[in-house]
């Protein structure tokens, strides 16, 4: 069967090998007989230079990450013969995964333009047919547009008691890992402390910054001045802003200072 093929792309160049790959995908043999008309930069054309209802197949090799504009799809519908086929494939140069993002809205665009039988292909493409009737016919769209969730809740229907979904075990609070009573955790020692934490807390509280430490801070690790992100858990400078080692610790007046 001899037919007319139109190959379009939104890129500047369209390799012929991609066109023949697409033709092969349409399931038609006899490659030698096809003589496709190739158009580049198809997005810029307001009108395809082909007669209406004159083309059997339109192949659109799509490069961009956006959907084809509606006008281009309308033009493709115009130039196709009745029962003609459109195939939209992504270009091998397009970004990985970019075509997947637009394929569902592309399917909607084809349906809304008037195509039927949309079919998403495994090889990252979509195929559709021009219907076998002229302007003025109507039929129900088979594909439901799922742009927003529809809540089909029957408000008269019975609901189960959601409290019955909880078991005895669910009502219990979890056992937090027993604190190791490390000094520095948030909770204070109990009044009747027996584990020795209260005595440790007293030691820590007495450990304040001495005048010597304020005047001449030095440390073996060198992290005291870097800020709380770097300080050891027992560092006496915790809570203070960062400072330069060896210099006097200046408690600045800005809003970040800890007013101890």
């Amino acid at each position, binding site marked *: 069967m001899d037919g007319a093929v139109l190959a379009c792309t939104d890129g500047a160049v369209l390799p012929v090998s991609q066109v023949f790959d697409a033709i092969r995908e349409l399931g038609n043999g006899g490659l030698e007989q096809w003589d496709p008309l190739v158009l580049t930069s198809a997005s810029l054309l307001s009108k395809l230079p082909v007669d209406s209802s004159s083309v059997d197949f339109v192949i659109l090799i799509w490069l961009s990450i956006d959907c084809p504009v509606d006008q281009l799809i309308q033009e493709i519908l115009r130039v196709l013969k009745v029962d003609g086929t459109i195939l939209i494939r992504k270009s091998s140069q397009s970004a990985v995964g970019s075509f997947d993002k637009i394929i569902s809205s592309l399917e909607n665009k084809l349906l809304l333009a008037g195509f039927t039988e949309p079919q998403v292909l495994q090889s990252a493409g979509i195929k559709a047919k021009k219907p076998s009737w002229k302007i003025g016919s109507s039929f129900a769209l088979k594909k439901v547009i799922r742009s927003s*969730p529809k*809540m089909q809740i029957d408000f008269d229907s019975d*609901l189960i008691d959601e409290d019955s979904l909880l078991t005895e075990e669910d009502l219990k609070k979890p056992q937090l890992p027993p604190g190791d009573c490390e000094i520095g955790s948030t909770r204070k020692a109990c009044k009747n402390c027996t584990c020795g934490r209260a005595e440790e807390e007293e030691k820590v509280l007495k450990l304040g910054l001495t005048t010597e430490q304020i005047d001449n801070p030095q440390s073996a690790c060198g992290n005291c001045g870097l800020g709380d992100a770097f300080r050891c858990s027992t560092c006496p400078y915790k809570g203070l802003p960062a400072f330069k080692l060896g210099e006097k610790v200046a408690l600045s007046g800005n809003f970040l200072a800890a007013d101890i």
Partner: protein
Amino acid sequence: MKGMRKLLILYASQTGNALDAAERLSREAERRACPFNLLSVDQYDPSLLPQEEAVIFVVSTTGQGDTPDSMKVFWRYLLQRNLGQRWLSGVLYAVFGLGDSSYQKYNFVAKKLDKRLMDLGGTTIVERGLGDDQHPSGYEASLDPWLSSLWRMLNMVKPEFLPNGPDVVIQDTVLIDQPKVRITYHNIANDESHFSSASDLTCLNMQIGSARSMHPGKSSSDRSRPGCFLKMVKNLPLTRSNCGKDVRHFEFEFVSHVLKYETGDVLEVLPGQDSAAVDAFIRRCNLDPDSFITVSLREMDDHNTHDSRIPVKLRTFVEFSMDVASASPRRYLFEVMSFFATAEHERERLKYFASPEGRDDLYQYNQKERRTVLEVLEDFPSVQMPFEWLVQLVPPLKPRAFSISSSQSAHPNQVHLTVNVVSWTTPYKRKKKGLCSSWLAALDPCDGIHVPTWFHKGLLPTPSPSLPLILVGPGTGCAPFRGFIEERAVQSRTNSTAPIIFFFGCWNEDGDFLYRDFWLSHSQNKGVLSEAKGGGFYVAFSRDQPQKVYVQHKMREQSQRIWNLLAEGAAVYIAGSSTKMPADVTSAFEEIVSYENEVSAEDAVRWIRALEKCGKFHIEAWS
């Protein structure tokens, strides 16, 4: 089509934690080349659930065990009895819950959802995970092992989802993810060309709306523009100074237009950020505060394409959308910062914080200390991040919700709030203050500052005048009940009204007895709280004597009066701190029902639960 199936990640977030965990899940999926869809529950049609192959739910539980707002419709759909036991046959699912074990109903939403999905025939991928904010490492202590199990099990049951396998070693050479947002800079010659024709208030409204609508952290249910602006007319202390508490009574007047509200409603206030903090942030990040920007999501879908985006000044965007000096950043900020750190010791430290080994230290440094973004950036001076990443990772500035403490019938043009000014000392002995309460407390009524606000329904429905009430509200829990009593006092001038019993509690009689004169005046001379009318006002001072006296002790003393009102069909309202008070007060009610009727404790529990089911037992609590 088989090949197009994706892992579906649904989150139901109330404060942003579930969204944060779900986004982390999606990043890990992306690194494993797993195709996924990430959606809020209210963006998904539950009737499509049987067609999914695998679904991951990340759900929060609000304070009272309620489902998050975005999940209510979805959950109601799932509870339909006519969904059969094989409705989800063949669907794999996993549930991770975020909760706080200091509340009574710990992770109830996740537990119920897990059970319901199983009852509908779904198959679990992994056992449900329950995150607990009270854990020494926060909810991530449960999330880390749960995620490892999830990927391992998913690889076993659905290997096509994970073509690279469950374990992906992120090499140093791997690029970080792309930022979610795209910043467009605009060259606008006339500074105020977009706003100059409008009035000052409309201009401020448009600026706030523009800045907040473009922020990627905005949830779908948020309204960007303030509902109205209020002007503060009174700022009164309710507590004696140096008593250990600072509770203020604020009175606001409507400025733009008067909105209707009811007692029990909630007012959300957008706090103003410290100008010095915003300036310091802009300086620290080398931003131009006067440039005009628009912010959009990188993967812009068709909906957003048609939005009109008004460019705003960068400083306006930061001031109204990004919380730089109050909220703590998420763990992901440290991971992204490690890519931009040029100093070696900072990069190593940031990577350590972002790793599972450093999780506890990060929790101590960041969450426990309530570190702010500005403080983190100052601790790592070599990090210079693009503004795109800052927009994505700095926590969004959130409005704070307060119970309205006035009745519009009594104050037609005003809204009153009762606010505890929050301040505390961190484990490292640094002083911290609440952003919104401190900002409100520092407002001077003479300044005429316009406060952006939104009105919302709260958890306490407005009672009708003929309904007897039993109110329990210690501390600032009394705030909504001040409005209740004002409203009923107005109503009682024209009609007869049902009585109110109110139990209030505080520390000391002379220190923090909030609204003392208001309660006392309404409990005398046949006021709406008076015993002569069948009501009553009872106070528990917990620290005025050696032994503790709380509201539940006062309730037990009035056991018979409470039961008489309950028998008349009274409604119970409880408001206040969420730690132990609601549980103790509920137990007191159960004891009263059991004692006055000589029935068993189980029967009393059932009775109280039935009261809750028919909408006459309400709790509003906050941490």
